[in-house]
């Protein structure tokens, strides 16, 4: 019976994904050239895609394994630069000609995979020494590692500020590499969605296997985990690399959305949404230990960030309120503090959104709500 349920879950998820995917394709075909769809919605989906993958991959380390890594954007930077440079090199070697060339798809896939692999490789370099250390030390080493990566990329002659030269005269990613302009973003939207769904699925598979159990055990009690025969360092390093792989993939998706790359976007002191600490905010907001929570939180953070800067409703607010929104980072910091203070488990806690359990969950929630209401009324009546 249990196995049937699992099989049904797989079937349901696949069906819904395929359905959504088709819907998206139809929508794309119908509205592909329309301004707001092409210029606002599609680029937003692209950005949500890499933020979702990034946040979910960090959740593996932070939420499931209980290790604070503050250098996650370093891995993303590695991925972004790897994918960008590889695609530029392929173009220079004339392996593909424009985005409609079928060979481009091969280059694209290889670039994305290479981005993940290189990020995973670097994560081994930092993880093997660093993961022997406990929480706080790991945080500081990964933070330092993030800075080293930026520092090194800045100093590499072929990828610093020169290699991905600026603007239309330089080797633009839109023209020469895997970067997608507005029209191409619509055309390749399926790719972003596919990579994201696949990444999230693979992260899920990891968590729902012996690896997931092992790292949750490490999170809950490292000594007891090793006393239960779990090779803690092996699982920690492996998980770190698995997570970095997807951070690298997120980086590749990031490179796809941009015409140029700049290391300052990934830097610790950067005030933007790609700051490593902000990925931590997403994970905490969504719930440490809930991959779907991370994905939802990434979308929320993106929307808040986007709306604060480009939305119209901010200007509808009274002046005293909209004043705060001129400083989006201040809003995030406040949100983070409030969430930690009042709901330290984040929005989802460790709950995973699932299609299969959606209806029973809602039914239970309503039942609980009714029961609570009835109890309250009873209490009132008694009083």
């Amino acid at each position, binding site marked *: 019976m249990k196995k049937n349920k699992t099989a049904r879950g797989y079937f349901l998820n696949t069906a819904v994904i395929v359905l959504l995917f088709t819907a998206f394709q139809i929508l794309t075909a119908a509205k592909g050239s329309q301004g707001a769809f092409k210029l606002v919605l599609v680029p937003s989906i692209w950005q949500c895609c890499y933020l979702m993958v990034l946040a979910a991959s960090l959740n593996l380390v932070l939420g499931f394994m209980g290790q604070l890594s503050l250098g996650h954007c370093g891995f993303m930077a590695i991925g972004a630069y790897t994918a960008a440079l590889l695609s530029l090199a392929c173009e220079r070697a004339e392996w593909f000609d424009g985005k409609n060339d079928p060979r481009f798809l091969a280059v694209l896939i290889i670039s994305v995979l290479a981005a993940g692999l290189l990020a995973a490789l670097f994560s081994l370099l930092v993880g093997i020494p660093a993961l022997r250390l406990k929480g706080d030390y790991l945080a500081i080493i990964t933070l330092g590692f993030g800075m080293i990566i930026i520092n090194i990329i800045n100093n590499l002659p072929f990828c610093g500020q020169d290699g991905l030269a600026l603007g239309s005269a330089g080797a633009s990613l839109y023209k020469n590499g895997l970067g997608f302009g507005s029209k191409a973003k619509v055309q390749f939207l399926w790719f972003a969605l596919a990579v994201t769904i696949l990444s999230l699925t693979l992260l899920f598979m990891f968590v729902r296997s012996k690896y997931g159990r092992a790292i949750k055990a490490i999170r809950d009690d490292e000594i007891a985990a090793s006393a239960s025969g779990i090779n803690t360092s092996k699982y920690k390093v492996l998980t770190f690399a698995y997570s970095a792989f997807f951070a690298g993939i997120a980086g590749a998706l990031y490179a796809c959305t941009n015409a140029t790359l700049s290391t300052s976007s990934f830097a610790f002191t950067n005030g933007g949404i790609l700051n490593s600490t902000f990925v931590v905010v997403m994970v905490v907001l969504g719930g440490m230990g809930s991959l779907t929570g991370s994905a939802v939180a990434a979308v929320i953070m993106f929307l808040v960030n986007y709306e604060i800067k480009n939305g119209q409703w901010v200007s509808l607010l009274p002046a005293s309120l909209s004043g705060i929104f001129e400083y989006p980072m201040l809003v995030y*910091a406040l949100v983070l503090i409030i969430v930690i203070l009042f709901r330290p488990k984040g929005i989802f806690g460790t709950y995973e959104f699932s299609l299969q359990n959606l209806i029973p969950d809602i039914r239970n929630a309503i039942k609980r709500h009714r029961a609570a209401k009835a109890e309250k009324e009873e209490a009132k009546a008694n009083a």
Partner: protein
Amino acid sequence: MNTFFQTLIVGLRLGSIYALVALGYTMVYGIIRLINFAHGDFIMVGGYTMIFVIPVVLRLGLPAWAAVLAAIVVCALVGMGTELVAYRPVRKKGTNMTALITAIAMSLFLENLAQAIPAIGPNPKVASQIFKAGGIHIGTVTMEYTTIITLVISAVVMIVLFTFTQKTRLGRAMRCVSEDKAAATLMGINVNSTILLTFGIGSGLAAVAALMYMAQYPKVYTTMGALLGLKAFVSAVLGGIGIIPGAVLGGIVIGLVESFTTAYISSSMADTFVFLILIIVLILKPAGIMGKNIGEKV
């Protein structure tokens, strides 16, 4: 040879600042085992306080450094406020991880709050000269008085803090709290007020560090604490976190590494070497240069 001495002096100059900041980090970490990410931002708070107070102080005919008194008060209040509003409630119900994330949030909050205050804004500000220029000449290089004062202050603060934690009643209370909060409560120590006091002292130290930082590097801006705090924390870890003399040692080592890398290896890779040194030391000696390795109780 002159280059060597010059590099050494630059290293000491940077190192003495890192040491002073690291003392504040180590102080707080030693008691509540929390990386107070906001400590760097307390320095920013101290810096801006002095920017605004120095003109007043000068008008009163006092030396510019007297402004540090105001900064100490403001920093201590901000530090204790942070503890009361954010850290204490989280410590009560959260884990180490949530406490650390709160610290990051506080750091972001302070940085961005400063930027949102109209009198501060996004533009950097430059302080007036705090100490008279001049120094001891060794050949063609000059060891500035400011550097010497910073080193002396670091040493004095180190000795005072060390004696305070070892010899006085309050200091012993702090150490008790750091060892075992529950046991400390049983011994009649008010854990909350001890931690509050620790934050007061640690944040007050940030103001002193801000003074010495501004005396040598007179620019104040809202994110100044981020990198400075990070390097100072690295110093504290390198020396052995929670160990007061270790912070000073670590700070000076980091300053020297940074300076010598700039002068002799690559001027644009200094940060990389700083963190490489940290990683290497932590691998060889996970508790830092002066730290003792204490296993978890089973």
